[in-house]
């Protein structure tokens, strides 16, 4: 297992109180595998990624029972050891490519700086490597691009440069935090293609954070659905997307607009009423309680246990595995 | 040039915030601290004749260069000592507050009047009026104030009134710059457009619609320029081309003390400290104003 995370917690100070952004998250990613981390804004997926990279704000607290990249224990590393790891064995790209590059340095310089920070390469070797990796992400005229400044490139090109920067030291794991959300659909498709190719070429593990289920359908091997700081469902793409077990996942998938009108008789877009709550205290209740259409009394008393659904994925709910099928069967019987 | 485009932070809701202002101000430590000092200096200046133990102009050959109360050779009736002409230092310092406050307030009011008017006109009418006024502002910015002030005073002849007028005629640049940019920002807002549509006169629009809403950054500029004026007058008097003897300007007192300062250091420590405290209080008040009028969440 490339990345092994167990019981990750992240708390942030919030005006005197503590905000529990991540409350006991388990993740695992194998080499060459893409894990999509899905959820609404505020569910803690970005915080999880930052926690893995060691990029949390200074006053944030992180603790985990297990936090391992390969054989390295990430939890026990000092800041400088962590910084040596970043960009070399694990790298991350972010959502907004327009502001993610330093405006006063040519992009060649920025790429070479990263490479030379992590290797003992000299200037010429770094430049050659930078050109090589720029070409591998589909940038034509790479030698010319090296001398250009970020403001001379479009958003899609800038994101490619950032991907190149993330790949230049051949990392084992790459985390992508909604890298295509700010781009138009065509560019989005191109970027996803580049990422998948890069992953295949290097047998790289990838965590792809998104709220777009269409993207998940295209690139995920495994899917983890997060809600209010916890993973509520986790399994293969087939299992989670085709046979979702958790009420939240079902709600998410149902709310994707389908051309043709969705269910027979459906006139409005389905949505999940309410907002993601923020947690300041330890809570024994199910996080989805306030918005769940299948809530029961027990949901307000004990934390939901992790069960295994018929399709193979795990989900955290008081409902019994197979509840979806039995309800559907029940409806059919009555109908 | 770049100085002209510095954008002030205009609060989002301007007039609406007024009820809360004093409540917030009362709790702001810097505001209270600097406010108390400024008020104290103002009161000292106003009530100088009642507070000063002696006549600041009365000389006494016998009692020259007596040190202040913390020194062993001190004289009882002169708490802060005497200067080289035997004049009571405490009284001179108290009366000096009058001069500094007069300069500060007078020059600032005058320069505010000039600068704000120019800025309103430049910001409201773009086109050649704006270009003309901007050129004037840039010209003024290019000329070093202290040299111009000295030159003019040298020509006209130094006195307190001349200094106030000259500084008032020179310190308006920041008022104009800030007013101009703020006016340009505000002119796009709806209440200005509706005033125009209703046929209000330009004067009304400028002074009753726009000006009240750009008060915030202007109050900050006023504090900066007031501190500037006080220190400039002190410098002018120090160089002999400001307030003339025997008036007790703090700057002049420093100049007069230059020859005796090696043996009687209090002669320069005290007036300088007064200038420092006044300038500090004004600057802190400006910082507090900036905090209190920063728009948004406050």
């Amino acid at each position: 297992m490339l990345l092994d995370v167990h019981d990750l917690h992240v708390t942030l100070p919030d005006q005197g109180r503590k905000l529990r952004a991540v409350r006991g998250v388990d993740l695992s990613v194998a080499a060459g595998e893409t894990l999509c981390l899905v959820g609404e804004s505020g569910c803690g997926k970005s915080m999880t990624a930052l926690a893995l990279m060691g990029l949390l704000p200074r006053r944030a607290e992180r603790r985990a029972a297990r936090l391992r990249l390969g054989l390295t224990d990430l939890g026990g590393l000092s800041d400088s050891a962590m910084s040596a790891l970043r960009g070399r064995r694990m790298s991350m790209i972010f959502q907004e490519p327009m502001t993610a590059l330093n405006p006063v340095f040519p992009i060649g310089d920025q790429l070479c700086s990263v490479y030379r920070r992590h290797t003992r390469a000299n200037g010429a070797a770094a430049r050659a490597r930078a050109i090589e990796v720029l070409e591998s992400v589909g940038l034509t005229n790479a030698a010319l691009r090296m001398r250009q400044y970020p403001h001379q490139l479009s958003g899609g090109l800038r994101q490619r440069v950032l991907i190149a920067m993330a790949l230049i030291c051949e990392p084992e794991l790459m985390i992508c935090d909604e890298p295509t959300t700010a781009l138009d659909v065509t560019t989005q498709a191109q970027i996803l293609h580049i990422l998948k190719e890069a992953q295949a070429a290097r047998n790289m593990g990838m965590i792809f954070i998104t709220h777009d289920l269409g993207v998940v359908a295209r690139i995920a091997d495994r899917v983890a659905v997060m809600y209010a700081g916890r993973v509520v469902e986790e399994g293969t793409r087939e299992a989670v997307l085709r046979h979702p077990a958790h009420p939240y996942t079902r709600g998410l998938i149902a709310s994707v607009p389908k051309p043709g009108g969705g269910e027979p008789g459906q006139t409005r877009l389905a949505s999940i009423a309410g907002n993601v709550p923020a947690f300041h205290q330890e809570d024994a209740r199910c996080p989805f309680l306030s918005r769940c259409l299948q809530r029961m009394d027990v949901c307000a008393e004990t934390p939901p246990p992790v069960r295994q659904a018929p399709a193979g994925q795990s989900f955290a709910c008081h409902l019994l595995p197979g509840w979806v099928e039995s309800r559907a069967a029940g409806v059919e019987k009555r109908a | 040039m770049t100085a002209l485009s510095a954008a002030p932070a205009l609060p989002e809701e301007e007039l609406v915030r007024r009820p809360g202002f004093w409540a917030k101000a009362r709790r702001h430590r810097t505001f209270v601290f600097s406010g108390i000092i400024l008020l104290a200096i103002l009161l000292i200046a106003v009530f100088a004749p009642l507070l000063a133990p002696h006549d600041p102009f009365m000389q006494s050959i016998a009692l020259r260069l007596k040190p202040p109360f913390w020194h062993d050779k001190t004289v009882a009736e002169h708490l802060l000592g005497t200067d080289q002409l035997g004049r009571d230092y405490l009284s001179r310092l108290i009366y000096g507050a009058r001069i500094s406050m007069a300069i500060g307030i007078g020059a600032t009011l005058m320069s505010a009047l000039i600068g704000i008017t120019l800025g309103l006109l430049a910001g409201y009418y773009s086109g050649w009026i704006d270009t003309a006024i901007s050129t004037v502002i840039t010209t003024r910015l290019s000329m070093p104030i202290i040299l111009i002030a000295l030159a003019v005073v040298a020509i006209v002849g130094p006195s307190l009134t001349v200094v106030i007028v000259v500084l008032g005629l020179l310190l308006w640049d920041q008022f104009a710059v800030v007013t101009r940019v703020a006016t340009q920002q505000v002119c796009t807002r709806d209440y200005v457009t509706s005033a125009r549509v209703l046929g209000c006169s330009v004067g009304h629009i400028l002074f009753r619609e726009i000006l009240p809403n750009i008060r915030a950054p202007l109050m900050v500029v006023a504090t900066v320029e007031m501190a500037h004026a006080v220190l400039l007058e002190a410098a002018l008097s120090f160089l002999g081309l400001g307030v003339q003897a025997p008036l007790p300007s703090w700057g002049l007192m420093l100049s007069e003390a230059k020859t005796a300062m090696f043996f009687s250091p209090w002669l320069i420590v005290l007036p300088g400290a007064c200038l420092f405290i006044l300038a500090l209080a004004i600057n802190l008040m400006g910082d507090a104003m900036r905090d209190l009028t920063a728009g948004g969440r406050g």
Partner: protein
Amino acid sequence: MAAVVMVIVSVICFVLSNVASDPAVGIAGAQATDADLAVVRQTYGLDRPLPVRYAEYIGNLLQGDFGTSYLAKRPVLEMILERLPVTALLAFLSMALALAIALPLGCAAALWPNTLVDRLSQVLAVTGQAIPNFWAGLLLIVVFGVQLRWLPISGSDTLAHFVLPAITLGTFAMPPLMRLIRAGMIEVLASDYIRTARAMGIRPFALTFKYALKNAVLPVISLAAVQLGFMLGGSIVVESIFALNGVGYLAWQSMSRSDMPVIQAIVLLISMIYIVLTLAADLLNGIMDPRLRGARK
């Protein structure tokens, strides 16, 4: 715009020396009789119409003739050029000192906001701006020159003579520079591109001093140019306290004795230098900030 401003400045200086005060009185002396004054006016062509005299004034300027001092009876330009090195040295030393304190302190305050370092920087900023610089100069003289006897307090023979004056002149310039660096660095350190660099493993030292600083320092260049201009004007006070024989001291002497040609020449020169400095700052900004280098692609 700069050209227009220069013209206006030259007009103002002309007015100062030829209209606001009577050059005939300046040349002949205060005790001159009316007959003397009439002779002077004719000899020097002071009875010609103003526009003609202004044209001649500009013509002279362009040839390097800034007029003749009433008192020293020497070409003004010569007198100024003799003293310019002292003032230039003072201004540059003061600016160097101000930057040497403002840059590290501003960076430190931005890296560790709301800590002791930050509070210290704020105290220094507020104090530096409120202290009357001539008072600071006098205090420095008393403490360092007399009581401790570490540094010389008058004259301009050695570099050591410039230390106290540079400190005095620099204290006023330091606070705005430090505040600007601090604000700029705080903003830059919170930016996305610094986050990217950090995510790529760039070391904190390089992050601050190479990646962040180059962005934050851009507005400081313009401010430093403006401050340098102020220093040239403000040198008048510092030079007279420390008896440095520079342009400022010359200005003060001329003003005390109403030597108008010298005064207007100095004002003109310093204004010109100021305009050139701001233009140079714009140019430097254009060089350092690639986004300003014109539309490419």
